[in-house]
């Protein structure tokens, strides 16, 4: 039978240049329900942080026409978090790729994780939010059932390379599959090409998303760095089809 599971609601929202997919309890729907509030939050993030919008606070901050103190407090929060990841990653993650203020590599995962937390605060104990391939899973799929997340194979469009499973976890993937090489190694200024995709799994999507971006930029150094991360695991596919994974990824293999 087509359609969502009994008592569940699926919703796809076009926002932030992608589609954000929700799998929530049916009661979270309606307007203004918990789902509606989470959707409104994402549109607010888009309007505030988008570097594609000249009038966003982030664009105005980057041009110097708006002071950080006059921005929404979330702007400073995001920039501080970006600085933390930048230090942790030896500069491979940066909020100023190409010298221009653009924390997009952090914002999407952070916004999705926050949307998932809003649903939790509204009383949902089981939901997923998928922002264009970066997913925060909350609770279990069902009693005793983990959420199962397929990781696409960048070398075989339409196919899955791996399935990870768990509860209360996040999955983020950086890669070249759709838009071609677009992650720049900040230390060389050149696109990173040694990996076809890197997936990071762990508790927080904001962190996992930024770590995946950093690991992708690191190319050959990514594996050792990912192994050093506390609480996060990684899986990578090289353009020739070779793969590697960190030691603790087995805990997530479904």
């Amino acid at each position, binding site marked *: *039978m*087509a*359609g*969502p599971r009994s008592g569940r609601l*699926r*919703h*796809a929202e*076009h926002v932030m*240049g*992608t*589609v954000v*997919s929700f*799998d929530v309890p049916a009661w979270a729907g309606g307007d203004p329900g918990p789902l509606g509030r989470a959707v409104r939050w994402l549109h607010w993030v888009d309007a505030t942080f988008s570097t594609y919008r000249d009038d966003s606070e982030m664009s105005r901050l980057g041009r110097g026409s708006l002071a950080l103190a006059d921005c929404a407090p979330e702007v400073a929060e995001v920039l501080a978090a970006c600085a933390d990841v930048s230090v942790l990653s030896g500069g491979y993650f940066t909020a100023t790729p190409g010298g221009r203020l653009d924390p997009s590599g952090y914002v*999407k995962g952070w916004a999705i994780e926050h949307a998932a937390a809003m649903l939790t605060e509204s009383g949902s104990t089981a939901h*997923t939010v*998928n922002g*264009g*391939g*970066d*997913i925060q*899973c909350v609770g279990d*799929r069902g009693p005793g059932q983990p*959420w*199962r*997340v*397929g*990781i*696409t194979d*960048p070398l*075989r*469009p*339409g*196919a*899955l390379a791996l*399935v990870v499973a768990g509860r209360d976890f996040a*999955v*983020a*993937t*950086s*890669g*070249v*599959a*759709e*838009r071609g090489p677009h992650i720049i190694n900040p230390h060389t200024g050149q696109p990173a090409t040694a990996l076809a*995709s890197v*997936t990071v799994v762990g508790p927080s999507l904001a962190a996992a998303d930024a770590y995946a971006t950093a690991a992708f930029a690191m190319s050959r150094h990514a594996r050792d760095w990912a192994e050093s991360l506390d609480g996060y695991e990684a899986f990578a596919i090289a353009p020739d089809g070779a793969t590697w994974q960190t030691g603790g990824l087995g805990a997530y293999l479904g």
Partner: protein
Amino acid sequence: MRRAILAITGTIAGLVALLTFKSHAPAIPTATVSGTGGGVTSTSSPVPASEAGPGQSFSTDSQAGGLQTGETTLTGQVASTVYGPVQVQLLVRRHKIIKVSILQQPESTVHDLQIGQFAFPQLISETLSAQSAKIDAVSGASYTSAGYIQSLQSALDRGL
């Protein structure tokens, strides 16, 4: 050469992904799989014209020989792609695709032959394996708003 094949593969993969996930859901631009899956015992009359909208490109054939109870074959209309005509047939049992057959495919160039010998068999196995993976969500390199419709996540959202 490889790049061209991958591009073609991606296109066909999108097509197959769309064909893969049966639905009564709206907004599938190129193909909607119809049929109740009731098989031999279900109605075998043609789809009424009123239900055969522009997106309607499959017909059910519950009376084909060799079917077991509960199985339905869905035969796609011939799809005109830039690479030539493509037609597929699905064998469905209890709302699951259990076999994909390519009835018609381009054969005029070396590329076409490579697709026939390599890409189609691979895509068929992938169609079946992705379906059996029982996943709730898909992680991959970010898709754009436009690319979403061809994504596996889109198929899940429509109610795999």
